């Protein structure tokens, strides 16, 4: 199925999206050594080595989806070879030959996760 196969009203069939549930996480400095090891997948009973498969384990509580969380869909359009900077100097100054790739950072704050 491609994006073009989607019928109008497809989104309505999914029902309204629910906002993601907010989870209060302790700050890194508030974690106990045991919690820190658990987050890093370190099991003290197994040679203290990070568990490489923990991210693939569906039974791992950390890998389970937050209730009500929606999936994300990424759409990357085909990049046309147009809208170029005519001045090479402007291209270097802006860090891109393509005008439409010059994105000004407009974020205002960083959110701790």
């Amino acid at each position: 199925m491609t994006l073009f196969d989607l019928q109008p009203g497809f989104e309505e069939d999914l029902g309204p999206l629910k906002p993601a549930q907010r989870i209060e996480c302790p700050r890194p400095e508030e974690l106990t050594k045991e919690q820190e090891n658990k987050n890093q997948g370190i099991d003290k009973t197994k040679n203290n080595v990070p568990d490489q498969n923990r991210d693939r384990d569906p039974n791992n509580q950390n890998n389970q989806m937050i209730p009500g969380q929606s999936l994300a869909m990424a759409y990357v359009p085909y990049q046309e070879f147009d809208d170029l900077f005519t001045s090479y100097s402007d291209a270097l100054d802006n860090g891109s030959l393509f005008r439409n790739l010059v994105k000004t950072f407009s974020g205002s704050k960083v959110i701790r996760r």
Partner: protein
Amino acid sequence: MNMTRRELLKKLMDIDFVIHETVLYLDGHPNNKKALDYYKTVQEEQKEIYNQYATQFGPVTAENVKQDTWTWINEPWPWQNEREGNE
């Protein structure tokens, strides 16, 4: 138009960047004729600027020596920065 060494070097950096950007685009869009034509045009222009620089101020790389003597050693070494008066 006579350009200073610094101006010409900046021009070289600009065009090198544009070529690099075009190469990256072509890596992802190898059949884009417009991009390939642009690449060829800019590449020709780059050669001209390299030649102009090499003739006026000396080689950019050892392979660019155009004079009758080995002028490569006259150039500042990469670790000699502008503070040493190499502008």
